């Protein structure tokens, strides 16, 4: 039996080695030249990479954003593609984990030969991928990373959302002048660049408006118990609490605040925008406000057409992450059309020159720092729904 099997095993061993060698060579060779980005090779689909948190702690962000991006690609291809070629979207999941974005974006650029990269929602993960895109001169568009540091990485890095100095100031003005709050406490996620940045700009704006920050506390993403911090906040009697975190913790924070008898409104940013927020926080979130990028209740044609198409494809109402994912792909296609090529440097120049592009999330103009200058909307949570309050222009 052993002797009988030996030659087969041997043969299998050889074929395995051969397969490994072929695989290695393929990877090596495709890694060396950039197939799709060379000018003149204008046949076949245009490969666009996307990295998103499809699984892991912020999975709903990645999934929403990806659904929006996919819808945009559908629309572009249905209209005949870009430069006469179809768009092929290659998506990689970064599992909401630090370290993963660098790996998957390197793979997208080196092995798949994408001409541009779309992603991510979380600023920490966009910051990880940005230097790689910059180094390879591949334009990268973040749909919804709001931390200013992201586009500061280099001149190939863009975004289609507003940035935290704007969002923080909008929320500070709203808290001070519309809600007439005087003393606000801040509860920050110290593990997140997004949260730290937003907290900083909110504090500056609120103090500039004549308000006072009466207490500051921190937590780490992944925490479940916030009672110690909330009890300390309760002791100083704030009029409101600014919680610039992600939806994963905000629900529990609201719940525990109410249990401790802390019944002031909570305020937050676009990190709250998720269908998972309300199920966990429930009635504790009633009367809380947050700023975000768009509202499906907006009656403009651009928004209503998008909402209709999105509902037709996914049977749900798109949130801001989906709208921004859509805009990120659309603005890239627009730049490619104007550049007349998929060449990285030329697309970069076209992106930088974007002016008054009518996106779903408003008119987008790229400023000198490659950030989108555009309005923000403020939503309130009422009857378990996100309700539109007002739009604030820059």
């Amino acid at each position, binding site marked *: 039996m052993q002797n009988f099997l030996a030659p087969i095993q041997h043969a299998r061993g050889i074929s395995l080695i051969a397969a490994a060698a072929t695989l290695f060579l393929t990877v090596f060779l495709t890694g060396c030249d950039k197939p799709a980005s060379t000018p003149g090779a204008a046949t076949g689909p245009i490969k666009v990479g996307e990295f998103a948190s499809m699984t892991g*702690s912020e999975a709903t962000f990645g999934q929403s954003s990806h659904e929006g991006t996919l819808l945009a690609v559908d629309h572009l291809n249905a209209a005949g593609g870009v430069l006469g070629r179809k768009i092929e979207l290659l998506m990689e999941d970064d599992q909401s984990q630090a370290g993963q974005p660098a790996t998957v974006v390197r793979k997208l650029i080196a092995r798949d030969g994408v001409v541009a990269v779309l992603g991510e929602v979380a600023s920490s993960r966009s910051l990880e991928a940005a230097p790689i895109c910059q180094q390879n001169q591949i334009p990268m568009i973040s749909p919804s990373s709001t931390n200013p540091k992201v586009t500061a990485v280099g001149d190939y890095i863009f975004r289609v959302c507003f940035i935290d100095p704007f969002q923080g100031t909008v929320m500070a003005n709203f808290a001070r002048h519309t809600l007439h709050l005087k003393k606000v406490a801040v509860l920050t996620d110290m593990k997140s660049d997004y949260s730290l940045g937003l907290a900083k700009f909110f504090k500056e704006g609120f103090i500039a408006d004549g308000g006072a920050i009466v207490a500051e506390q921190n937590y780490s993403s992944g925490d479940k118990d916030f009672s*110690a911090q909330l009890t300390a906040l309760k002791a100083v009697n704030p009029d409101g609490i600014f919680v610039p975190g992600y939806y994963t913790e905000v629900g529990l924070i609201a719940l525990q605040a109410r249990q401790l008898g802390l019944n002031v409104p909570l305020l937050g940013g676009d990190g709250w925008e998720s269908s998972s927020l309300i199920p*966990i926080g429930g009635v504790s979130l009633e009367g809380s406000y947050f700023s975000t990028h768009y509202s499906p209740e907006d009656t403009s044609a651009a928004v209503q057409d998008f909402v209709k198409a999105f509902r037709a494809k996914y049977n749900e109402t798109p949130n801001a992450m989906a709208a921004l994912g859509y805009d990120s792909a659309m603005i890239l296609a627009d730049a490619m059309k104007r550049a007349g090529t998929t060449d990285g440097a030329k697309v970069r120049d076209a992106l930088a020159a974007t002016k008054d592009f009518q996106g779903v999330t408003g008119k987008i103009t790229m400023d000198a720092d490659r950030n989108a200058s555009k309005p923000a909307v403020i939503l309130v949570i009422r009857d378990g729904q996100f309700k539109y309050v007002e739009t604030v222009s820059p």
Partner: protein
Amino acid sequence: MTELLQQLINGLALGSILALIALGYTMVYGILRFINFAHGDLFMLGAFAGFYISPAVAAVLPGPSLGSGLVVLGLAMLICAVLGVVIERVAYRPLRRRPKLAVLITAIGISLFLENTGQLVFGATPKKFPEIIPVYPVLKFGGLSITSSQLIVLGVTLLLLVALRHIVLKTRMGMAMRALAFNPEAAALMGINTDWIVSFTFGLGSALAAAAGILFAIVYPSIDPLMGILPGLKAFVAAVLGGIGNLPGAALGGILIGVTETLVAGYLSSTYRDAIAFGILILILLVKPSGLLGKKEIEKV
């Protein structure tokens, strides 16, 4: 003053959950001299078992009530006990006569396996744990607040502590467990079915983890497949702090950690909460390496 009292209540509530997880850790260690690193993941599976069976229970026993909550708790404990026995049978028993390190590393492997399978099967998005018992503030007194869920956690922890002590010290099964802990070979020679005792110990430990998981999910109703990692780690520290293998020690250690963490976050710095809290624990262990209630053990040569 009110604030300090409230912080102590918060710490006690957090600590009693850690104590509950630590009880399972310490019991398995006390009998088998083996740290089951998958304990935190059985804790997670307990919460998910509760999540999936509670709609079925609600169909028979409607509404959040203490009765239906206890049924969910009991069923989840049963499911996890079976899982614990299966894990022991499949992963640990074949390694019983191998070096302790092999079993330890297998336990870490099981832990990673459960976490990643959990993400695949349950999905990584946090889920809302249904309200299986009514949660309401039972005490609102001069700004103090205690919820019904916090009281139930404290009560169940004490109850399980007493029940465990009774099982280990007063029953025939407990006597067999202690005999096994003392000398497995001699116990086997005396006619004790050691395989059965080890299975029972794992089943009991896993049921405790499930109970902790359900109670944790009642107090913090957001569950995800990675929810067991941090509480598991802290409960392990609690067990070591109290003297690993010692049941009241685990409870004491858990409550100490909960209170220390809360007071550090509330009064010193929420940024360095874990660093300061664990620094204090290291100091305690430097003074008393066998843990607060642990006995000095003499290694047999």
